[in-house]
């Protein structure tokens, strides 16, 4: 069973979002997503300064098996990317909700955060996927 921390919000496309006190958010991919992809060998995050809209393809994670798009869970401006992933993409496998974060976003509309899935709702979508 994969981990789904309570305090985060999730997109059906398997990204997680963590809201910070300053109103900015961190974005990564869920434990379930990293486990399905297998060993990651390359992460292509969006670029700092990119303006992205909810649902946009804004990056790629590649495992030895396959490439998979990552989608923007919220609209906003990319203000940082996790540069450690350039040389250590395996951080996403090892710590998907911590050191494996992919980028940081300044949301255009914070209300979008509340529209994302709660941990319970995300867990339900995973169970439905398995049926």
């Amino acid at each position, binding site marked *: 069973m994969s981990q789904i921390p309570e305090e985060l919000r999730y997109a059906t496309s398997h990204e997680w979002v963590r809201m910070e006190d300053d109103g900015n958010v961190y974005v990564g991919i869920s434990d379930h997503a990293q486990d399905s992809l*297998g*060993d990651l*060998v*390359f992460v*292509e995050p969006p670029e700092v300064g990119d303006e992205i809209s909810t649902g946009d393809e804004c990056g*790629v994670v*590649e*495992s*030895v*098996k396959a*490439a998979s798009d990552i989608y923007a869970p919220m609209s906003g401006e990319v203000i940082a990317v996790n540069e450690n992933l*350039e040389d250590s993409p395996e951080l996403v496998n090892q710590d998907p909700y911590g050191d494996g974060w992919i980028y940081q976003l300044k949301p255009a509309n914070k209300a979008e955060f509340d529209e994302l899935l709660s941990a319970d709702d995300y867990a339900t979508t995973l169970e439905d996927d398995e049926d």
Partner: protein
Amino acid sequence: MGNRTPLYDAHLAAGGKMVDFSGWDMPIHYGSQLDEHHAVRRNAGVFDVSHMTVVDIQGEQATDYMRRLLANDVANVEAGQALYTAMLNEDGGVIDDLIVYKRDNGYRVVVNCATREKDLAWMEEQTSGFDVVVREHPDLAMLAVQGPEARGRLADLLPSAVAQHASTLKPFTFCEGAGWTVARTGYTGEDGLELILPGEQAPDFWQALLDAGVEPVGLGARDTLRLEAGLNLYGNDMDATITPLEANMGWTVAWTEGRDFIGRAALERRREEDHPVLRGLVLESKGVLRPHQRVITDQGEGETTSGTFSPTLGQAIALARLPAGVTGEVEVEIRNKRLPARVVKPPFVRNGKTVYKYL
């Protein structure tokens, strides 16, 4: 539910993540494809390849039949030797690639599972006019035990009927006994053995291998290992529309004077024409090469046929069909970006060492 090998339960017990592979439920990995890859390069790993199709050819005219059927020439090897070859259609296209084991009284061949029906139908069709019998053996299991430590770990585990001989096998030779075929062949670029054995003996033998410290390895690592070794995968790097000359397999075509193998006339014509060739690529920036990416060269365009991240090299590698004569620097288009790559002569890795040469 797909077909299951005799080791299906053993894969689940080892934590295998099962996927469909041409109608078979097979392990793609047992936790980490990268760790399994390194286990084969550094120590020893075992693959279940029982989904592959074992076919025996016997009869008075078995040799004549094989010399007609295959692009390589079984007359060039002795009993006890193995031969890699293509089986061609009349247009010179590759129906399949296979290993032939030449016996005292006939031949054993191992063909790909994805092409099983097509291969068996073709082989049967070609028996017309020959005193020969083609028979599949679905009751057999097949394991590949590969890696620098593989033969050492295996030494005490083989049946006594083959153990002594197996320990002295030279590369591309084999021995048989007690219903086992033990060959010093493989698909990884490492030393090791491939074993064909009665299916009912496979679970105990598998367990004995694991107990001896041989790691279970899934089909995911099998693909990255074979690509590092510069070995073709049927369906990716060649198919029925591609001749061996365009698939880096020219060395497997035996042009023995007067031997009329299927596809020869077409190959002789193709040989006189300008045709693309299969080369290696090493990506010079971050990223991962995949099949069907566009390759831009100063002599026209090409396309990757297989591509992956090479765990041993730590960078992306590919096989690519390119205009003949392309050397040096090329560009590969990945998601609308053009990234620099170098044309190389495969293999990329052999016996754990980087061996590719720039072209």
